[in-house]
């Protein structure tokens, strides 16, 4: 698995395909026999982040890099950016549209839940340009 890179394009507003990248990466991790509990943490975080692109951005790219010890995932979108990251990290705060809420999301749980499930998380955002979210999960839990 060393150095394997998986890339996916995500279109904003395309809810019928939201989750395709997460699903593909999940299947790949299962083939590698990664611990199912670790896989669940990775794909729950990734799915939330993928839905965020669909819900908030115009488009985005997901790049997952696998090493023997971990997976690093970069989700870079072109979109409105996040005005206040502190607020966005607060459970219950959301700027999601009614359409997003009808899809079962937009309750302001996404970013906090992503953070809970990953070992490392970094957000870089520019208002009016976009957001890049970087996630890392180790395949063996850190003691």
């Amino acid at each position, binding site marked *: 698995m060393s150095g394997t890179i998986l890339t996916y394009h995500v279109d904003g507003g395309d*809810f*019928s395909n*939201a*989750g395709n990248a*997460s*699903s593909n990466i*999940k299947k790949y991790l299962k083939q590698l026999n990664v611990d*199912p509990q670790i896989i*669940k943490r990775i*794909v*729950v975080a990734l*799915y*939330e982040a993928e*839905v965020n692109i669909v819900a908030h951005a115009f488009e985005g790219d997901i790049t997952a890099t696998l090493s023997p010890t971990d997976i690093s995932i970069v989700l870079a979108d072109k979109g409105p950016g996040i005005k206040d990251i502190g607020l966005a990290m607060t459970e219950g705060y959301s700027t999601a549209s009614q359409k997003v809420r009808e*899809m*079962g*999301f*937009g*309750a*302001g*749980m*996404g970013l906090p*839940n992503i953070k*809970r499930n990953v070992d490392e998380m970094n957000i870089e955002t520019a208002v009016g340009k976009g957001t890049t979210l970087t996630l890392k999960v180790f395949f063996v839990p850190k003691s």
Partner: protein
Amino acid sequence: MKIRELIEVLHCEVVCGTDFLDTEINFGFASDLMSDVLTLQQSNLLLLTGLSNLQSIRTAEMADIKCIMLVRDKHPSEEMIELANDNDIVILRYSSSMFKACGILYNAGLKPVY
């Protein structure tokens, strides 16, 4: 409780996943909000939801949930059934309310997540 046992208790309809009705289910969680479902640690649970769209199936896939019950007489789309079949997920349909389904299943021994 096996999935086939909760089907007998509720008299609900099996939409897909008939090969997996002997799967053991210990917990029940009722929500139309998928973000809340994605916070759960447990996997051997039944998701009761009125959210009949692809995201409820996707959420089950990501959270390793093997059985979804659509309540309030909701019908799944062909795309939902296809996605559930691809991921060995059982879809059940119940014509009455989420409240009634929860009450009956709680009495039958299905545990709450928290």
